[in-house]
């Protein structure tokens, strides 16, 4: 196992398309790092550069102490799980797993041992004689996993490995992949566009947009301390609610107001505006931090638009000037659409964003 370091890596396609811009990243040993972003953000390109499948335009890549920027894929000692599994259809499961080992001229009985070991780790030891066409999608995925583990790589690369599985299998494979990672202790880079996948698996998440890194942090960090509107909107289901508000300083303290809202900030929250000299901002609040209160304590009152029961809780949506605000309320009492709801915010969880730079004011 080893660390992975990418220094000022840039990838340009043709003359004008910059897929990855000045990418800096350090992956610690045994870390499970997730590259997260919408499609086309350059996360897959970044990973393919680590694998050597894509040439680096400028910058350097190090695995451990070795510089691998110019090395062909086979000399990097990485292994990869592809989105479509890329299991070779003309080879049996056994041969698929043994492929890399045979190329390394490892003795036959040693190959046999490694293949059986990694197959049993991925729970496919019963399928070694089968051809991939006789396997289900989930089983092919396991073949890809055990093939990747058999080579004992420095770095594990996973390119959206779960996106071709059905929803239920995806969730269970998630847990298994994480368990395998913990058992093998491999340094892993995992690419996905699914934020819940990223949240549930990652030690650290790198959020990318348009080829640039927006935020790096633990799942907790990116969720509760989103650095920009993009991150706050991208992470979480339902995502963060946003409201345009004006800052009004009055005798009793600082108020955030708009036609529907009048929120008196606690003094410690108002502290965040000390160095902020614009008179309006964008307020961000996670749905679970909006609470139902009595009319007297409400910062915000509106008619309920839709209530979506989820069993353990319900998602209550209200509409304010075409802006839909979602909040999570306890399952009881059931809220009937059309009735008035009175809401207030957990103040310590509020995020304030500069409308011009879209970056967070409070950090």
């Amino acid at each position, binding site marked *: 196992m080893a660390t992975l370091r990418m220094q000022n890596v840039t990838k340009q396609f043709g003359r004008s398309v910059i897929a990855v811009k000045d990418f800096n990243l350090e992956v610690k040993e045994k870390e499970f790092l997730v590259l997260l972003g919408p499609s086309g953000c350059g996360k897959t390109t970044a990973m393919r550069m680590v694998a*050597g499948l894509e040439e680096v335009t400028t910058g350097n890549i190090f695995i451990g102490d070795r510089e691998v920027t110019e090395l062909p894929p086979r000399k990097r000692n990485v292994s990869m799980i592809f989105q*479509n599994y890329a299991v*070779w259809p*003309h080879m049996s499961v056994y041969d698929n797993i043994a*492929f*890399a080992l045979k190329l390394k001229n490892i003795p036959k009985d040693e190959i046999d041992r490694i293949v059986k070991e990694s197959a049993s780790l991925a729970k496919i030891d019963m399928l070694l004689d089968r051809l991939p066409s006789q396997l289900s999608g989930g089983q092919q995925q396991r073949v890809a996993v055990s093939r990747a583990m058999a080579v004992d790589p420095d770095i594990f690369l996973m390119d959206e490995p779960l996106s071709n599985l059905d929803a239920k299998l995806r969730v269970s494979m998630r847990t298994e992949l994480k368990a395998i990672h913990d058992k093998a202790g491999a340094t892993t880079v995992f690419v996905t566009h699914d934020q819940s996948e990223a949240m549930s698996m990652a030690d650290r998440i790198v959020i990318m947009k348009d080829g640039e890194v927006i935020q790096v942090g633990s799942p907790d960090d990116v969720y509760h301390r989103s650095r920009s509107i993009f991150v706050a909107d991208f992470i979480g289901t339902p995502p963060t609610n946003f409201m345009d508000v004006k800052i009004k300083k009055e005798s009793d303290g600082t108020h955030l107001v708009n036609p529907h809202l009048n929120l008196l900030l606690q003094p410690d929250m108002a502290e965040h505006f000390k160095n902020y000299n614009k008179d309006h901002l964008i307020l961000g609040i996670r749905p679970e931090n909006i609470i139902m209160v009595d009319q007297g304590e409400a910062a915000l009152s509106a008619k309920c638009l839709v209530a979506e029961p989820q069993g353990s809780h319900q998602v209550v949506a209200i509409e304010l000037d075409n802006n839909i605000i979602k909040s999570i309320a306890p399952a009881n009492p059931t809220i009937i659409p059309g009735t008035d709801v009175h809401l207030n915010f957990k103040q310590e969880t509020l995020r304030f964003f500069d409308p011009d730079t879209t970056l967070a004011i409070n950090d």
Partner: protein
Amino acid sequence: MAKRIKKPIKLSKVISKTIFYMLIVTLAIAIILPAFFLVSLSFLSTREAYQYPLPLLPSMSTEYSLTHGNRGYLISVYDKFEEEYQTVLDTNELEKITVYMKNQLGTPYTIAEIEEQIAILESGAEDPVYFNARKNIFLNYISFFQISRDAVPALLRSFQIAGLTILVSLTIGGMAGYAFARYIFPGRDALKFSVLFVRMFPGVAIALPMVIILANMGFYDKPVGLVLVYSVGSIALTIWITASIFMGIPESLEEAAQVFGATKFQTFLRVTFPLALPGLAAAAMYAFLGAWNETVSAIILTQFNPTFPVVVYQALLGAVGNVNLAAAGGLVMAVPSLIFTFIIRRYIQQMWGGVTI
């Protein structure tokens, strides 16, 4: 057991099914009949082959009658259509009789055997003497190789040319097909289309320049010359077949091989090539059939070293030209391509049937 419920049969369904089977049968007949005709013809004796109406099946033996004629012995042959004996020879040269029996009727008969029959006639026991001679059914095939002295070397030459054509067109066409499938470069589609242009010219139309160019290269009347000419056409076809096959192989399969330790060459050998095998087999089949069957260019571009189809063609010409001999030669020519097609077909089916990419 469940009760069988009779469903009312719809008239439209009956009609459409009837028409469907009529079409199928017509098609089958259209394909089988000429082939049957060729096979049957190749076993007919010369006399049968030029009879009218032509017999549908070759006879296995011939009934003769022998009696005294004006000039010697009168030989008659039983005609199945007219249901009578027809006089064919009146001679006292016994050798002439045996040659006629062999060449015209396919019934090899020695002079001694003729003398035996004559002895019966002379003894006065029977007049005329009737006797039956068995036909050597493969005589046409034997005669074909005896009469066309070039046949065996031409057969070997045809194998050589077909083999080399496969090699050249698969090597060059396969590589070009891979490039067309994997790399995007300016003018790719135009180039891919333009390789088909070479197939648009009839061979005869460019025969003269081809003769001159090959002569200048020193390849006129040599197998290599024909290999070059045939390869041009089959390279184009190979490019189209292999390009579509390579496009069907996901790039990630090759990338996976590279990540897992293979060089580019090993990747091709262990991943791309086995997966492309059905396409390559199909391309090889077309290249083989093209080179094996081609006649027009071969007639023009060879003189003393003809290919097998040219020899078959020549069997129709000149004093020795006989349709039944040409039919025998044609069948000899069909056998290798049938065998080759069956072998290749197994690969195509095996790969496309058993493996889904």
